[in-house]
């Protein structure tokens, strides 16, 4: 067999493992000599190291298999509190990111005009010299854009930016600021709560695709597995309210389609029924919640009044009217204790998103689920003072402020740190134009070329999470104090020269003499300090009689947690319902298009951050099984009427712009909704992300119009209406469905592949 694998190590470098081995002495691992003998080499020594996954925004605890200095497989860390050994479709992607052929290997300096795409490889010392020089010339006018960060890398970035007089924006395309604000207003704290789905009897969710992409999906999938423990007669019931048929909707027992922005009204109507019919438990203080007004506080929210306003069809699962459906759901929700109500995603993405989410989370107070096992469990403050338990999610409005500052020359230097805001914000934001100015000096830290660092003056290659130190306070944690620790488990390959970005910032600060608030030599140094602090606490999961032993065990376990350090319910429910109802408003919609536009996060690409990774592109979407392309979900009957068939390239036009994508005709799509995943439509990047035919790939954010959420200024990305036209051309759809199907073999009565049963029909 002639395998290319035979040759692949000729360039391989010294593979030292800078980490503490599981069962081998530290010094024995320092330097290993690779040989050009693949079988021998790739076998070599095998170890599993605990670290934190850097592919998803919520870092899960993982263990990585390392054979002779090369990472082979990522698996969930069985002890880590949030994911308990589980993993999502995204966990293994880090491996391909680490060994990606298009990873930037050395600092790149712009050669020629901005956006020319011409960069020179230079040495680190020259790159840092130049950045230092620019920093001192532009002191006081420096800003940074990063994704939400936690742990010491966030502390270092913050102190760095503060030292140079600027501001750090934590930017996400579909930001969570509205969700965080609602949590703060309803539960009284900044730290996100833990939803104890595993012990719940009923889950009522609105808009949040929490089994696939929303906030901390792996954690909640673990809970969902326990929730559906049918063999032990404790099968929880789940109702999902959503404008599109998401993965979560497909797994719910009941899916209630709803027009975007009406979720709050539905939630308050459920609250109305609970109060009207006295379904709440005796310890719930209704008079306090309503400032003594009782049901009057919710006047106008009776199901009979609300039912016709939601855009929900009348015949959901045998109910005759929407008002009947609301009453059924309210009775179920109140009678199955403990019950959880949660919301996010589209429910918080209309102009009235904050009102919607507050109304949804209020339901937890009404059935007494807050702070209860199987309910909403509030997370405690982290054990380390310096670290926050939450990120400051910023919004597009903050980017717009930044654009103004750049135009006014208040900001002359911009650091973009592992983020791609040009791709992640709609074209009309104007970010792209402002970055293309010669007055602005932009330093990008990252691993791949993308739409943002296309305009960079300097690109500094970052280390992959498997090559770098780090730590994390999981957001949300599992109801108790948790500190995750990330350690370098492989060294960069010899042809790669990435540096830890936190260490780069520390070096720059020291070079400029601004290291007074940054007392660490490196990120590792900061983590060792943290380990010593945790050691002094003398509690938690990590044992060790000396600081060194504690540190070793901390790395071995992948973190520190203390199940007894739980949070307390600090919510102030006085007049909560009144505070929410005054915000009640109908959603404002842009344009009068025929369809609601509902963008959503892609199951493996998320908001596009994994677009360069072949596995992420080649993983079929659960609902449509499409890979590599942008698909447009459209209802089957509507498509019939319009003469649209699967594979047709259709144009979707909003007031802002138009994009093209491939139609996927779905029997589950509401007739008045067009939904499109984020993640494709990349224009600059590796071939895996960009090499597409016209019409195969589009960035849905470009047709999202400029609507802001009242109270948080977040982008109301579910408040756009669109019209569609069939372009007349069609393309092959790259979907897995129909490639290999067991049913093709034979499908006769009684031989269904998927058999169903009713609860109670089986005993085991």
């Amino acid at each position, binding site marked *: 067999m002639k395998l290319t694998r035979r040759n692949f190590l000729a360039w391989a470098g010294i593979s030292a493992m800078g980490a503490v081995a599981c069962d081998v002495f530290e010094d024995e691992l320092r330097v290993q000599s690779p040989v050009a003998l693949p*079988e021998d080499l790739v076998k*070599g020594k095998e170890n599993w190291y605990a670290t934190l996954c850097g592919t998803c925004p919520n870092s899960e605890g993982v263990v990585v298999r390392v054979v002779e200095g090369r990472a082979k497989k990522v698996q969930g860390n069985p002890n880590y509190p949030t994911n308990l050994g589980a993993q999502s479709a995204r966990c293994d992607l880090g491996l391909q990111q680490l060994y990606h052929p298009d990873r930037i290997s050395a600092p790149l300096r712009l050669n020629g005009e901005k956006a020319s795409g011409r960069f020179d490889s230079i040495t680190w010392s020259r790159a840092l010299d130049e950045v230092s020089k620019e920093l001192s010339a532009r002191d006081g006018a420096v800003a940074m854009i990063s994704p939400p960060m936690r742990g010491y890398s966030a502390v270092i970035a913050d102190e760095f930016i503060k030292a140079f007089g600027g501001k750090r924006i934590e930017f996400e395309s579909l930001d969570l600021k509205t969700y965080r604000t609602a949590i703060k207003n309803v539960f009284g704290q900044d730290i996100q709560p833990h939803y104890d789905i595993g012990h719940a009897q009923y889950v009522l969710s609105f808009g949040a695709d929490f089994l696939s992409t929303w906030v901390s999906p792996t954690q909640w999938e673990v809970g969902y597995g326990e929730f559906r423990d049918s063999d032990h007669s404790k099968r929880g019931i789940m109702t999902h309210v959503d404008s599109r048929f998401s993965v979560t909707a497909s797994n719910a027992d009941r899916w209630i389609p709803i027009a975007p922005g009406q979720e709050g009204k539905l939630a308050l109507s459920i609250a109305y029924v609970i109060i009207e019919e006295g379904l709440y438990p005796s310890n719930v203080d209704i008079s306090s919640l309503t400032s003594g007004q009782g049901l009057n506080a919710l006047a106008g929210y009776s199901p009979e009044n609300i039912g016709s306003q939601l855009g929900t069809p009348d015949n959901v699962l045998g109910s005759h009217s929407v008002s009947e459906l609301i009453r059924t759901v309210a009775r179920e929700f109140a009678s199955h204790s403990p019950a959880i109500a949660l919301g996010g995603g589209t429910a918080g993405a209309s102009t009235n998103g904050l009102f919607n989410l507050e109304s949804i989370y209020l339901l937890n107070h009404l059935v007494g689920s807050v702070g209860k096992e199987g309910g909403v469990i509030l997370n405690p403050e982290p054990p380390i003072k310096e670290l926050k338990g939450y990120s400051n999610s910023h919004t597009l409005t903050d980017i717009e402020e930044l654009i103004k500052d750049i135009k006014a020359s208040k900001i002359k230097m911009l650091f973009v740190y592992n983020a791609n805001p040009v791709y992640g914000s709609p074209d009309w934001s104007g970010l792209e134009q402002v970055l293309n100015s010669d007055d602005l000096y932009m330093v990008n830290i990252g691993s791949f070329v993308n739409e943002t660092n296309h305009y960079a003056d300097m690109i500094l290659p970052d280390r992959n999470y498997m090559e770098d130190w780090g730590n994390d306070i999981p957001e949300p944690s599992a109801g108790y104090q948790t500190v995750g620790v990330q350690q370098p488990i492989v060294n960069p390959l010899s042809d790669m020269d990435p540096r830890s970005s936190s260490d780069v910032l520390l070096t720059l600060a020291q070079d400029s003499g601004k290291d007074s608030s940054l007392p660490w030599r490196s990120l590792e140094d900061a983590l060792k300090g943290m380990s010593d602090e945790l050691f002094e606490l003398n509690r938690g999961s990590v044992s060790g009689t000396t600081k060194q032993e504690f540190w070793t065990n901390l790395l071995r376990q992948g973190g520190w947690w203390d199940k007894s350090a739980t949070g307390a319910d600090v919510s102030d429910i006085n007049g909560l319902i009144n505070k929410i109802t005054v915000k009640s408003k109908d959603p404002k919609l842009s344009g009068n298009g025929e369809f609601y536009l509902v963008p959503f996060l892609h199951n493996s690409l998320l908001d596009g951050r994994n677009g360069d990774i072949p596995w992420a592109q080649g993983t079929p979407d659960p609902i449509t099984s499409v890979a590599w392309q942008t698909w447009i979900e459209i209802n089957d009957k509507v498509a019939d009427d319009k003469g649209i068939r699967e594979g047709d390239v259709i144009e979707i036009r909003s007031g802002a712009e138009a994009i093209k994508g491939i139609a996927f005709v779905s029997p589950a799509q509401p007739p008045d909704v067009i939904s499109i995943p984020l993640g494709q439509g990349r224009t600059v990047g590796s071939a895996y992300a960009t090499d597409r035919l016209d019409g195969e790939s589009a960035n849905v954010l470009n047709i999202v119009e400029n609507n802001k959420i009242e109270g948080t200024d977040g982008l109301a990305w579910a408040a756009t209406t669109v019209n569609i036209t069939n372009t007349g051309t069609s393309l092959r759809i790259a979907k897995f469905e129909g490639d290999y199907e067991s049913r093709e073999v034979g499908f006769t009565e009684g031989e269904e592949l998927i058999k169903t049963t009713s609860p109670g029909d089986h005993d085991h």
Partner: protein
Amino acid sequence: MIPKGNIVAATLVGLIMAGITGFILLVIAISWFSNAPFGLANAPAQPIAFPHTAHAGSVDDGGLGMECEFCHRNVTKGDSATVPALQQCWYCHQKVSGGDEEAQAEIDKLVTAYSDGVPVNWERVHRLPDHVRFVHEAHIRHFTMGDTPETQLEVKEVCTVCHGEVAKMEEVQPKQFQSLKMGTCLDCHRKYDVPTDCTICHK
């Protein structure tokens, strides 16, 4: 007079014979110069001459009598025996110098490679096909922890079962004792009543 047809036939037969002979010679030539397990070539040249005799050879023969697993230290722990890290070579050779100039030159190569951080690409001597899994540790365990005298050997004796007396080889020669073909493996597995399911070795 020989009929014309016969001449043509004879020529054809002659050509075919010559072709077959040539082919056989070619096969032999290729195998002679190519490496084990398919070829018959002798020890490949290594980037740094490493005399096993000087390290592992017995003290009586002028060696140091080191155990095999002192350097190949993964052999009792995992799948592959592993070539030691350069650091390990350097650890001794920062003090230990070569007996003569020639030996010292080789040691210098090693020390330079270590200090420059350049990997040394050793040439493989014993090679198994890529679809075969061989776990050194399990075999060592079998031959050292058994019930009969022939399965209660010292580790270095176990190595010789397949590799031959490496301690006596200036350059490690392939296929001294075993051809390392599937038959070799099966014979032994059958002899000791070890499973011979395909998935035991094939991966």
